[in-house]
């Protein structure tokens, strides 16, 4: 398997071993992966909550740019860079638009 380079047509969801949860004691969102505890920032949490395997990355960008009344081009760059870095850590399941959600 080679490296997957993400594009707006792909649909992504968190991989089975990457678990996003709210930690009451620390009052923060936490992303758990093997051997690591990551603390995603607010925008990253929002993106991850939209990554349901049904929406495409393009859909996520549209949703966010409407919500924040922001330039979709800029939002797309941010979303892709955050998701690509998670994909490179194998935290994401990825399906292209043609396939069913993984």
């Amino acid at each position: 398997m080679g490296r997957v380079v993400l594009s707006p047509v792909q649909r992504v969801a968190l991989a089975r071993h990457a678990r996003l949860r709210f930690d009451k004691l620390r009052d923060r969102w936490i992303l758990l992966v093997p051997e690591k505890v990551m603390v995603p920032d607010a925008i990253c949490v929002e993106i991850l909550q939209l990554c349901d395997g049904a929406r495409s990355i393009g859909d996520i960008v549209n949703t966010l740019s409407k919500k924040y009344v922001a330039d979709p081009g800029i939002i797309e760059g941010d979303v892709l860079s955050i998701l690509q870095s998670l994909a490179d850590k194998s935290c994401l399941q990825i399906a292209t638009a043609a396939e069913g959600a993984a």
Partner: protein
Amino acid sequence: MSADDFRIIAPEGAAPTAYGLPLAVLAELTHRCPLQCPYCSNPLELETSGAELTTEEWCRVMTELADLGVLQIHFSGGEPAVRKDLVALVRHATEVGLYSNLITSGVMLTKARLVELADAGLAHVQISFQGAEPGVADRVGGFRGGHAKKLEVARWARALDLPLTVNAVVHRQNLHQLPALIDLSVELGAARMEVAHVQYYGWALKNRQALMPTREQLDVATELVEAARARLRGVLEIDYVIPDYYARQPKQCMGGWGRQFFNISPSGKVLPCHAAETITGLRFDSVRDHPLEWIWHNSDAFNCYRGTGWMPEPCRSCDLREVDFGGCRCQAFALTGNAANADPACAKSARHRELFQLAEAESAATPEGFLYRNFSGGSRERR
């Protein structure tokens, strides 16, 4: 643990503290293991099966862990699969919301048991490899047929879609197989690999002469890992632990003593790190005697090296004292007799040069036969 874990994760706006809530726990379910690795991180004095915590005790402990703020539990050993109740323990971890990881040699797992573990909510599996092929691997592990079995188990895990980390402890006698170990990890479908040079305390200290890599081997290995990381970006993530004896700066061991991790021994002793028992004179508290929350805040073994107040020079006045916390206490104790001293891996330690020379001399000598790890104080390899 990775460097990212070092920062204390506290609620936004909270006042800074010397230590945080514990994030992750290494649960050593047993010291029993069919393998006999000469660098095993278990203590020389292994705990017997009769002393082990029961299923009920572990379940109570896991509930307490979750309440205390622990997020991840690494089931380890010895070989955790020796425990007949492993599936039940993983299930309980899932029920109380702990992220579970199984650190195993693999040799005792069956396909059916892996299915049960996956169903119980196991999040991740880490399998150790002692070499890239049976000749070296089975000799180092002291267990014939082990390597072949590990390959089978790793393939089952991936077929079940369990995420896999290949753990490779490397040393003078298997470093030549590092390229093949990296290829093997990719071939097995592991998303992560740990390449860890041996850390010398306990069993490994007894086998140091046979395990110490040459400086040249180390440099080659470091270059190989760098190149593989670049080549395999997005395919295989490689964590790399360098050998202290050739380092100039020590590791921030455990992210700082008692800051956010701990270890529970098979009989329930709560240890700031898995090698802490090598420091003689420390007193450890047991989950059988106190609630975990009490232990985390009050156990002397934790408080004695928390923060920086206990440090003598050169650490006391060093700018890096809150970066690496003076390195590894166990190594400082093993090499200087005082756990509070700077870890000799540090260039500022009075023992640093000596350490370097010792490593060079030992790595150049003909290796002795291994002293295999077992319950009878070790057995010398016959060659």
